[in-house]
Structures are given as structure tokens and as C-alpha cells.
């Protein structure tokens, strides 16, 4: 290792003690992170529109494929909408963290000691708004497409709102685990779907109970509780797995 003094113009050296240079880390704030993630999502419309188009295509083609018998459509409608919602969610998961790893955003967040769980939470909340949030609203199309009653359609929407956060968190953890793997996106549904199936079963079951005149509220409450717990816990788990992305 060789040393040579700095030879620079007429700029005088500042006789600073190194201890005076210790900088208490300053971090990016919640609103700044939110604004950035909102801008990324807003200006990348193609990425989040595609899964929504897939959802619309599935729920539109399904009645055409099974025929126009009202009783059959009503029986299958809730399940068809839920499966379409789940597939559109899984479709959009590849873009959750991979771009951030590839373009260096994730590295910059880690190096600057930003709160990675907060970033994950914000990213997933915004992703939910632009995916399952819109899907929940579009699920009301089940009224004309599947001959559902408005009551049933609102319950269906409520089931998507309460259950989809948990689905998203499960997809996100699978995505973060496979982030640094080549073609890891193929593994995400294989890892996440077995855990997501109970949510699908409970959600469709709740809607069926309401449609039968029974009380499906406890099941919706269970879904909501599961979503709340997963939203509170998963960002920390996901952040920990994201920090290991460079080990492979």
C-alpha cells in the first residue's frame, strides 16, 4: 500500500477531527418513500394493467365457455372470480422486487440504511391498491356476467378485500425467497399456491354461506385477522430475505 500527499490546487485542508465527521444516519422518510413508490407504479402502467386485463379476460370468457344457464353461472361465479383474482395476483408478483434488485434500488436502500421493512410495506400496499384493490371493484362485474345478486357481489368484493392482502403477502415472501435464482419467477406459484389455497377455500365458502342465508361473518373475520397479521409480520420477514439477495 503506497501513500502520497494530496496535491490539489489552492484549497486548504480543513483541520477537522475525524470524530467531528461522524454523521448520525439520516434516513428517508415515510412520505418520501411513498411518493417514490407511487411514482414508480403510476408511471409503469403497462406492468400493473396486464394482470388486470387477465382478470377481465378470464371472468368475461368463463360465462361464454360454460353457457348462459343462470343456475350454473351463479353456482360457479364466485369461484371463477376468485380464481381469476388469484391468478392475476400471481401474475404480477414477478415485478415486486426483481426490478429493484436489477436496477440497484434495493442495494441503495440497504447501503443507506433505509428501513427495508417500511419500504417493503409501502411497496406492497401500493401494489395491492393497483392490483387486488382494483380487482375487488371489478368483481362487481359478476352481477351481469354471472347473474349474481348485488348482495352476493358485495360479499364477494368484501371477501377479496379481506383475503387478498394475505394472498399478496404469501406471494411476496415466495418472490423474495426466489429473487436471486435464475427463472425464480417459475417457482413463486409453486411455493405460494399451496399456502394460498386455504384462503381461496375460506373466501368462497364465506360467500356461499351468505348466499345460502347463513352467517359467513366469522369466516370473513378470520380472513381479515389473517391479513392483518400477515401485513404486520411479513414485511420484516421479506426484508430479511431481501438482504440475502447478494449471497448467491
Amino acid at each position, binding site marked *: 500500500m503506497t501513500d502520497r500527499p494530496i496535491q490539489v490546487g489552492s484549497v486548504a485542508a480543513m483541520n477537522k477531527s*475525524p470524530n467531528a*465527521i461522524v*454523521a448520525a444516519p439520516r434516513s428517508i422518510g415515510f412520505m*418520501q418513500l411513498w411518493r417514490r413508490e407511487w411514482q414508480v407504479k403510476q408511471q409503469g402502467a403497462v406492468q400493473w394493467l396486464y394482470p388486470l386485463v387477465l382478470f377481465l379476460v378470464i371472468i368475461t370468457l368463463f360465462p361464454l365457455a360454460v353457457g348462459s344457464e343462470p343456475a350454473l353461472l351463479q353456482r360457479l361465479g364466485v369461484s371463477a372470480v376468485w380464481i381469476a383474482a388469484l391468478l392475476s395476483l400471481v401474475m404480477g408478483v414477478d415485478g415486486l422486487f426483481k426490478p429493484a434488485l436489477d436496477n*440497484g434500488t434495493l*442495494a441503495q436502500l440497504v*447501503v443507506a440504511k433505509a428501513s427495508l421493512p417500511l419500504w417493503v410495506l409501502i411497496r406492497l400496499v401500493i401494489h395491492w391498491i393497483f392490483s387486488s384493490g382494483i380487482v375487488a371493484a371489478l368483481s362487481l362485474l359478476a352481477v351481469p356476467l354471472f347473474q349474481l345478486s348485488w348482495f352476493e357481489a358485495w360479499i364477494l368484493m368484501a371477501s377479496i378485500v379481506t383475503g387478498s392482502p394475505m394472498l399478496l403477502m404469501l406471494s411476496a415472501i415466495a418472490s423474495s425467497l426466489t429473487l436471486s435464482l435464475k427463472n425464480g419467477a417459475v417457482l413463486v406459484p409453486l411455493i405460494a399456491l399451496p399456502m394460498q389455497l386455504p384462503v381461496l377455500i375460506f373466501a368462497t365458502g364465506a360467500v356461499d354461506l351468505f348466499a345460502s342465508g347463513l352467517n359467513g361473518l366469522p369466516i370473513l373475520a378470520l380472513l381479515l385477522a389473517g391479513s392483518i397479521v400477515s401485513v404486520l409480520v411479513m414485511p420484516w420477514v421479506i426484508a430479511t430475505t431481501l438482504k440475502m439477495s447478494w449471497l448467491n
Partner: protein
Amino acid sequence: MTVLDTPLLALEELTVQRGEIPLCEGVALQLSAGSICHLIGANGTGKTTLLMQLAGLLPVLSGEVTYQGQSCLPIQPLYVSHQLGIHPNLTVAQNLTFLLNLYGITPSATDIDHALTWVGLQGFETISSSHLSAGQTRRITLARLYLLTPDVTPLWLLDEPFTALDVDMVARMEERLCEFAQAGGSILMTSHQAVGVANQVLDLSDYMV
């Protein structure tokens, strides 16, 4: 003018490794306030890996890294790598603002304008980053160097910062590096070009396994 003695960053018997593969062993370095250390070595010697370890992206499994005598990093280093941290969906100004926000800096429109003018991107504030060339995109990430000072981030870890830059921009960069070091910051950087302003050299070839 001489480099201050107290090390900001000290490496002792450090092993540079990627996963299970050790690249270098016994690496030693003392970086004081005012140091500009040029990290050299052939391709594959572990220059990028060492910077990633110091940035906290890869673990240090063997050896000691201390920052002003402390084993955990109490400061936020600046890390410029091959992945620039630039999102193609965002405009130039939005990307630069985010990179500065990470260090607690909320730049004004004037700050952004001055920083972009310094890197030759004046007037590009509202241009989408996806429309820029590789060299122009790199300039966005370098523009923050104009506004970052040692009291915000006293250690800069720069991995090939001069890549895709023209001669004029390289000269401006070297001048900025000197200003930063003179203000008490420390820099550890790799470059396949000669770094005229470096006052220390660490050759990883001396520590190769």
C-alpha cells in the same frame, strides 16, 4: 497538506470472499479522513466484492472491519456500483431526488438544477430516464456527489465511477473527489483508468489466494 492520521475505516486480516470462494486473504487497509484510495487488481481479484462487503451487501466472514474503532457501521456510506439505482420509469429529477432522500437530503429545485448542470444534464429534469444513454444514466447517480458532504456521508465507496464518462466529466469528477477529501471525507474506489488524485493505493493482487 497531509492525510489525517486517525483511520475512519480500518481493515485487518480481512478475507474477501464470494459465497464459499475466498478471493483474497489478510487484506489490510487504513483509510483516514482525507484519503482517496485507489483499489486495483486484475479482473476477479475481488475489488467489487470488497466494496460490497464494506457497503454491507455481503457479510464479512473472516477478519475485522472497524469504522472509527467501532465494529458496526455507524455511518451511511455512499455506494456507487454498476447497478446505478436508477428506475427507468422515473424522470431524471425524480431519480436524483430519491437517491438524495436516502441520505436525509430534501433537495430544492435549485439544488437539482445545479447538480444536473454539474454533470451536463441541465434541462433533463423531466426527461424519462429510459430515454437516456448509458453514460447519461450514470451521470444521474453521480450528480448526487455534487450535493453530498462528509457530514452526511463521510465514506464513499465507488465501483468504476468513471465508466462511460467522457474526459471532461472525469476531470470534473476527480475535482469533486478532491473537494470531498479535503473537507474530511474518505474515498475507496476502483477504476481501470489511472486515478490521478488518489493518495493511497491498495493492490488486491498482493492478497490473492
